[in-house]
């Protein structure tokens, strides 16, 4: 299991490859890998967005993400998991978040990765401030419930 906060742009596919490669002892044990990648859009609420700053609460972010992954481990037979989240200045098309879960069977991989992602959206202390094409800046007010 690994949780990582990145201040620089990251390649989610490379992160997955490296994480899976390092866990050599798990080779042959997992039959399903579910991957979710959140990427920055260049539009939001009808406006063109040219960039974003992601603030976070260092320490609490890691603590909450560890707790969320631990909750998922109690509910599903997870073999391995990886959570990577970006902070700092971000441009459209750059990845914001990666959640990958390795399990024996697909149902657990889908369900556990969904759980981790939705819990992250509502509990991990990150805040987005958008920079619009008009030069205006605005904080996002609230994340929507992904199950609605």
């Amino acid at each position, binding site marked *: 299991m690994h949780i990582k906060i990145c201040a620089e742009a990251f390649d989610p596919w490379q992160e997955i490859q490296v994480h899976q490669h390092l866990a050599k002892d798990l080779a042959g044990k997992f039959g399903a890998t579910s991957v979710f990648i959140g990427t920055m859009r260049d539009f939001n609420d009808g406006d063109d967005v040219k960039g974003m700053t992601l*603030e976070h609460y260092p320490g609490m972010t890691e*603590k909450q993400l560890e707790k969320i992954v631990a909750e998922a481990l109690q509910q599903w037979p997870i073999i391995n998991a990886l959570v990577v*989240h970006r902070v700092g200045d971000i441009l459209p098309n750059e990845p914001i978040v990666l959640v990958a879960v390795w399990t024996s069977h697909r149902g657990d991989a889908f369900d556990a990765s969904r759980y981790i992602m939705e819990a*992250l959206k509502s509990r991990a*202390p*990150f*805040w*987005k401030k958008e920079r619009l094409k008009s030069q205006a800046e605005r904080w996002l007010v609230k*994340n929507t419930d992904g199950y609605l």
Partner: protein
Amino acid sequence: MSIKVRYFASLKESIGRSNDHLEITGLATVADVWRYANPNKALPDNSLAAVNMDYVELNSAVKDGDEVAFFPPVTGG
């Protein structure tokens, strides 16, 4: 007692600072900490609070050495 207070995101901007260090006796709850540190500003309704990096309710107790944080709803992911 000594309490470290931290503020984040839009709440930090609206009060104009990111932290306070309080040396005070008689603060019992998280809500007391906010009122003492920000006597002229009500905590916005949707705000979240944490003590030592765990979410808490505003009526939760505080003790010497705690780090108390206030921030708006989270918008990561």
